[in-house]
Structures are given as structure tokens and as C-alpha cells.
């Protein structure tokens, strides 16, 4: 009777394998989300960008999360980049900035379209958590998911001090722009 057992096992394995695949199909990830920051004052505009931000969307739980290595931001002035890491973000101590939240709306991931959503969750910058609700846009076309958002981060919310002594002018509110394409996790 061993052959019946074998077939049973084979069937069972198949079913569970399918379940596992299904579980993975619930998840989208991305490794090259673009993140740009912009600080504007009447004296000086400062911009920096990275395309090394990573992201995860879990359909079932409507979880959405982003993480970026602070050191991956590039400035056109290297000295500014050094000051950004050393004096403001302290990226040796707090290497990542992170946002983890849950979609406030239910969306149909199988239907193409553009969905305006809000995400409520925790923004962690400079080691300090701040609860935020951020508006964003999710576009779905042919199974491809693209996410974009724009929001502001107040330096004071995250314990980033701008001393009076500094000659370079840095805005109290920093604009953040995020855009990236997600792929289904296989």
C-alpha cells in the first residue's frame, strides 16, 4: 500500500506548495524606490536624492513599509552630504529612516486604476518615532503597482537641531517626494 501513501503525500505536498505560492503572491516589494528631499529657504535651496529606498506592500494586512539607508542620499556638494550625515541625521547612530503603516482604504489589487489613499503609521527618522497619516497614490496596471507620495517632515519632530551659528540655511520643514514601482514577490 505504499504507493497510495506516496500519492497522498505528493498531493498534500502539492497543496501546501500552492498555499505557500499564494501567500507570496500577496506581497509586493521594491528595491529601487526614488526618494528626494528638498529644503527651501529664501537664501538657499538644498536638494538630495536616492534611488536605493526599499519597500514592501502586504495585500492581506494592507501593510505598507519603506526603509532607506540615510547614507545613500546624494548631494551635489559632497561637504554638504558629509554635514547631513554627521551633523543632522547622525547616520552612524541612526542608519535608517523608515515608515511603516497600514492603508486606510481597501483597494482592489486586481483592477487597473489609480487609487488615492492615505496611510497611517509610524515615521522613524533620526531614531525618533512620529505617528503620521500620509496621502499617496497607488496606480495599478497589468499587475504592476506604482506608489507615489509627497509629504513634509518637520526637523523639530525628530530632534534634528539647526543651530543659529550655521551659515547654510536649512528649512524647518523638509519636503519629501517618494516614487517607485513594486513587483510581486515570487
Amino acid at each position, binding site marked *: 500500500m505504499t504507493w497510495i501513501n506516496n500519492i497522498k503525500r505528493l498531493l498534500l505536498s502539492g497543496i*501546501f506548495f500552492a498555499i505557500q505560492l499564494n501567500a507570496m503572491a500577496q506581497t509586493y516589494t521594491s528595491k529601487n524606490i526614488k526618494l528626494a528631499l528638498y529644503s527651501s529657504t529664501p537664501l538657499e535651496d538644498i*536638494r538630495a536624492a536616492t534611488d536605493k529606498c526599499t519597500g514592501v506592500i502586504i495585500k492581506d494586512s494592507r501593510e505598507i*513599509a519603506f526603509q532607506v539607508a540615510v547614507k545613500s542620499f546624494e548631494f551635489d556638494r559632497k561637504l554638504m552630504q558629509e554635514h547631513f550625515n554627521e551633523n543632522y541625521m547622525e547616520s552612524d547612530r541612526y542608519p535608517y529612516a523608515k515608515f511603516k503603516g497600514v492603508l486606510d482604504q481597501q483597494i482592489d489589487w486586481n483592477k487597473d486604476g489609480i487609487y488615492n489613499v492615505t496611510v497611517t503609521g509610524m515615521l522613524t527618522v533620526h531614531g525618533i518615532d512620529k505617528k503620521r497619516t500620509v496621502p499617496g497614490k497607488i496606480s495599478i496596471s497589468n499587475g504592476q503597482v506604482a506608489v507615489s507620495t509627497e509629504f513634509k517632515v518637520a526637523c523639530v519632530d525628530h530632534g534634528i537641531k539647526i543651530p543659529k551659528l550655521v551659515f547654510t540655511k536649512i528649512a524647518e520643514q523638509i519636503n519629501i517626494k517618494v516614487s517607485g514601482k513594486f513587483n510581486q514577490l515570487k
Partner: protein
Amino acid sequence: MNKFRLLPVAILLMAGAAHAQNADSLLKTLDTADKRETVAATFKSTHVVLSHSSETEKKHDLDLRIRHHFGDIGGQFGSAHTLYGLDVASDLFIGLDYGVSDRFTVGVGRSKQDEMYNFSGKYKLLQQKVNEHMPINLTLFAQMGWIAREPFSNSEFSKYTNRFSWFFQSIISRKISSRLSLQVMPGLTVRKNVSDTRDPEALVSVGFAGRMKLTKRFSFVADYTLVNGLSRPTDLSQAYYNPLGLGLEIETGGHIFSLNFMNSEYILENNFITNTKKSWTKGGVRFGFTISRNFTLFKSKNKDPEKRSDIY
């Protein structure tokens, strides 16, 4: 046979695990941060107090440095009669350093002592990396000094080449923590203009330097250069001392102000390693400062509007 029965159970567990995979663990697996990235800003400036640090200029950055050494605070030349040395300028320096690349800096300058012009090259050979892939920074430094003043006697510069001096140094540093950086600098100075025949033309020196960050922008800096007793005899008729400098460094984003106390009268290595005749113990200590201002040249080469900064 029995152990194969566990196979479906194992797969079931795996499937469960995949299901339970949350955003955090997924982000961890996606992490693309460079595990071999270089350690930045071992020092804030290209100089510690008197000596060079292992830092070089960033590519296309131009650094204008102005340095001043006042007179003796105490002793015969100090006290209230010279306002503790502030009436006296024992040496002045103006120089420009330019980053040809992130690793290679060229410099030119002029100091009051001997009307010396200096031309230097500085190359960052090794860079400290995180996770101990490379434990140290190694920077090579070479500087030529050219004495432009009139000779004090007819025999002083009998050959024109006697006006030149050469300084070579390996700068080895390590950022121990985000607050503390330490540095060792073995060096060699070669000059012709020697007053005592027993004083060698080739002087070996070993420097030690350190930085302790007090806040993000204020640092305590110190350096000491050991010269006496290496290749130079300690019993020369003219007493020479080892240069020791202590200071406070203030960084304000583009500017660096350095306020120092040191026994050395002179600013350039070619002068202060060979000719420090003042001592900390005999009132020979003096005040000095550096103002360093950084300019970025060729900024317009950056065509990416997302990374562009503008000063109005």
C-alpha cells in the same frame, strides 16, 4: 519510510512561515545598504592643530585657509607689554587647497617665516571602512618649501637649491568612535639650510594627533610631534623643542574656525618641525587661529535637478 511522513508537515510549516512574514522581516531581506562603505569625517578639517590630518578636500572643493600665530604669552617677550603676545605676529599664512579628486588634493601657500612659499600634494591611499574591512585611513603627504627672502649672509644660500626644503609624511588615522579619532604620522624633513653642523639635514619625526568631539560642531584637537632624540641630537647648542598644539575647532557648515595654543612659532611643517625654539614650560606658548572657508567649484556640472542646491 517514517521520516518522509514529516515532509508535508515541514511544507505546511514553511507555508505558514511565508504567510507570517511581516513587513519588517521583508524589509530586512531587501536591505541594500553597502556593508563595505567608507567611514567619513575622521577629522572635520584637513589640519588638526599644527599638523595635517588624514582628510583631503572633496572633489572640486577649494579651501581658503588663513592662519595666524601670535607671540609668546609669557617669558621675556610676553606679558602685558605685548598684551600677552597679541602685539606680535610670529608667523602668518595664507593658502589654497584644491581637491583634484576626492582622494587627491594639491595646495599652495605662503607664510611670513623665511617668506616661504609651499607647494604640496596629498593623496588618500587607504580609506577606513565599516565592519573592519579596512581598519585605518592612510594618507601620503609631500610638501616643498621655497625660501624667498634675501640671504642673511653671503654664504647662506651659496647654492640656490639650499633655499628648498622637502617634507614627506605618512598619515595613519582611525576613527575609533563617532567622537574620538586618533592619528600617527611618521615623517621626514630634508633641508640644506642648517645652522649647526651636528643638526642633520634629514630630520626624522613622528607625530601624534587626536580629536575628541565635544558636541556635533565643537571638537577638542591636539597634536604633538616628536623630533628631538630621533635623528636630531638632544644636546645641540641651540635648544629645540618638540611642537605641541592644543585647540578648539568650531565647524559651522563650510567654515571651520580653529583656536589654538602651541609652543611652535611657525606654521608650515618645513619650519615648525625643524625650528621650534620655544617651550611650553618657559612662557613660549602662544595663541593662534585658523579660518578655513570652503568653496565648491564647477558645481554647475551636476545635471541632475533632484540633487542640485542653489545659493541665492
